């Protein structure tokens, strides 16, 4: 009785014997060679592509095409025109980037957003994790607090900004409570405090969403780990450090990334809270400047350069964060 010899290589690639006659089954390459070309291109279940296609088209139209177009615009002289109006759009190399970076307001805006991220991102991660942990345990009025933290997130920025203006203006509640300790000029018109105030505002407004992400992640942390830690005599703080934090690591990555991306896209808050990036541009964000240049002044080429720089900046920060996390 002879047995078919299966080379280790075939085995590794999934080669196996036929269950009926014991003869070697055709290898994957052999099977592929016998398929028709539509099957080779579209796979054995082309209907899957149909299901996936709408989202692929959505991504292509809403994200990929504008991104590619903005990179194109950033290297050309470009203005928005009416249909059929032919204007030359010559290649200008890095001119738009030079124009953008030589504008003190643009440089200030990038510095501002860095200050914003340094305050907002760590604060968001820490507060949302701590609050989610608290809301995940058996505390009185748990459902109420869960809802309460989410309210600012779903409330229109315009309305919430009104409340903060009331709280943080010169005669606002915060300054009244602080008395002589209140900064002069007040928070939102103070060159040192305007951007940190916005960072605090955004942290508070978005906290509900990030708490929700952490709450979902906390459900996946096995209860047994806490029980074991407890049996081993670990304090609550130790359990938090050694069980909760590692247990929600992937959520932390997501929260950090989302906080960086949404923070880098800051627009509404400086537009409304500090009168369009005041005082003296100290709370202007790159997206606010981009809007002024691209939409108001019809310089979409320079605006595109600012946008590309912003994307690169976010990718670099996110990359560094990923590297640090991996280590």
């Amino acid at each position, binding site marked *: 009785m002879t047995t078919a010899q299966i080379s280790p290589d075939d085995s590794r690639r999934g080669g196996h014997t036929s269950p009926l006659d014991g003869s070697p089954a055709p290898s994957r390459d052999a099977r592929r060679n016998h398929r028709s070309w539509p099957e080779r*291109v*579209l796979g054995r279940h082309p209907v899957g592509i149909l299901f996936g296609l709408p989202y692929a088209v959505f991504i292509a139209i809403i994200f990929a095409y504008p991104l590619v177009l903005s990179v194109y615009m950033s290297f050309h002289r470009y203005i928005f025109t009416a249909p059929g109006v032919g204007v030359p759009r010559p290649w200008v190399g890095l001119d738009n980037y030079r124009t953008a970076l030589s504008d003190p307001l643009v440089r200030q805006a990038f510095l501002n957003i860095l200050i914003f991220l340094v305050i907002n991102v760590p604060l968001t991660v820490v507060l949302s994790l701590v609050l989610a942990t608290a809301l995940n345990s058996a505390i009185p009025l748990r459902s109420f607090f869960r809802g309460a933290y989410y309210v600012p997130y779903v409330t229109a920025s315009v309305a919430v900004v009104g409340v903060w203006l009331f709280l943080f203006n010169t005669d606002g509640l915060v300054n009244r409570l602080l008395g002589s300790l209140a900064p002069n000029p*007040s928070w939102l018109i103070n060159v040192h405090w305007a951007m940190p105030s916005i960072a605090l505002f955004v942290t508070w407004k978005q906290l509900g969403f990030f708490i929700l992400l952490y709450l979902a992640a906390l459900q996946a942390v096995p209860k047994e780990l806490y029980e074991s830690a407890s049996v081993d005599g670990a304090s609550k703080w130790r359990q938090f450090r050694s069980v909760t934090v590692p247990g929600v690591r992937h959520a932390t990555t997501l929260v950090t990334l989302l906080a960086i991306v949404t923070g880098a896209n800051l627009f509404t808050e400086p537009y409304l809270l500090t009168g369009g990036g005041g005082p003296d541009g100290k709370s202007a964000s790159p997206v606010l400047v981009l809007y002024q240049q691209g939409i108001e002044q019809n310089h979409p080429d320079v605006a595109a350069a600012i946008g590309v720089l912003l994307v690169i900046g976010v990718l670099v920060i996110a990359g560094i964060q990923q590297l640090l996390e991996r280590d």
Partner: protein
Amino acid sequence: MRAATRTIAGGLAALLAVGLSAGCSRVHAVDAATAKDAHGPISIWYSNNAQEVQWGKQLVAQWNQAHPQEKVTGQEIPANKSSEEVIGASIVAGSEPCLIYNTSPASVPTFQAQGGLVALDDFPGAAQYIQTRSGDQAAQYKSPDGKYYQLPWKTNPVMIFYNKKIFAKAGISTTNPPLSTYSQFLDTAKKIVASKAAKYAIYPAPSSEFYQSWYDFYSMYAAESGGSQLITADKAVFADQAGQSVAQFWASLYRQNLAGKEAYNGDSFADGVAAMSIVGPWAIASYKGKVDWGVVPVPTSSGSKVGDDHTFSDAKNVAMYASCKNRATAWDFLKYSTSEQADGTLLSVTGQMPLRQDVLGTYAAFFTKNPGFKTFAAEANRTTEVPNVPNSVEIWQSFRNSWSRSVIFGRSPVTTSLTDSAAAIDKLIRKK
């Protein structure tokens, strides 16, 4: 390999979809030569304030009754942060209507550069019609190529509204308040704040939008300089003595906390937070029943007088847009809507001044019946417009940034800030 093939196939399919959707949505340009003489239905946009909507609906209904073959469809301009953004986006999309009765003169150079406007001079007798209707003021609305891409329609001469109740509380005359010169204005402002009759004397928006300086700076610069524009003969002129005086005046108000520096969520004048406001005649209807107001011209260093000073026009004009297929009808409707009769309706319904010669004399009956508007009408023939130059919005943004830094927040000396700003704007004028 197979995965890569499939990814490429998916990518190609997506690209095909993008191409197809772009192809389907491509808008073809209107043939200008054919459109110029074409009659037929048109659409128009007007402003979304209640009075102008009423005026627009009334006018459209009247026209449609008389011209059933050339039906006009009117609608409010779609809501957005500003009308200019909506118009700019619709030009690019090729979806703008034939006429927009809310075209800001500052945006005309941009719309023109986009190829979004029709030169009205293309229609026989158009230039003459515009000049006869608006007189010498029409020249301010000519583009650098010598053509009219906008019909000067209505003006809102900017003046100072004051709250009589607050003035009375501060012990200031409510019939003849001392607000004519800068020193009088400052003294009055100090009295208001010191008496705690109001938190601030005046509260122009301290925000960074490019157009905010039209109200705080430009109205007073026009008055102080005798009607000079920001730019004359392709040169920024506002750093002159007149500009310096105006800037120093405002810097004093801010330095002494007589004017608010923070964003205000609401209407500071209606709420009684500020005793004065810089407004046009539209404010009469807006503050009716809310504030017992009085009105005076903007101050000058040597003293202002009703009917003797210049101010910022705050005009809104009508422009014809490139997507219009029936331009002959659009031009006919444009003339119809700016006739003496239609302008009279505009005045009586909205209280805004038609940008035509001798408004006071032409509509004497209206002003006898509504004396509150007389003061504004007296200023209407001496209004100064924003300069019609390329990069207009960028120029005003540059000015605003400099104004915020030096005048509002006191972070750089006013004198050098104005000269530096003028130098920066000179560069923008030359920028192609």
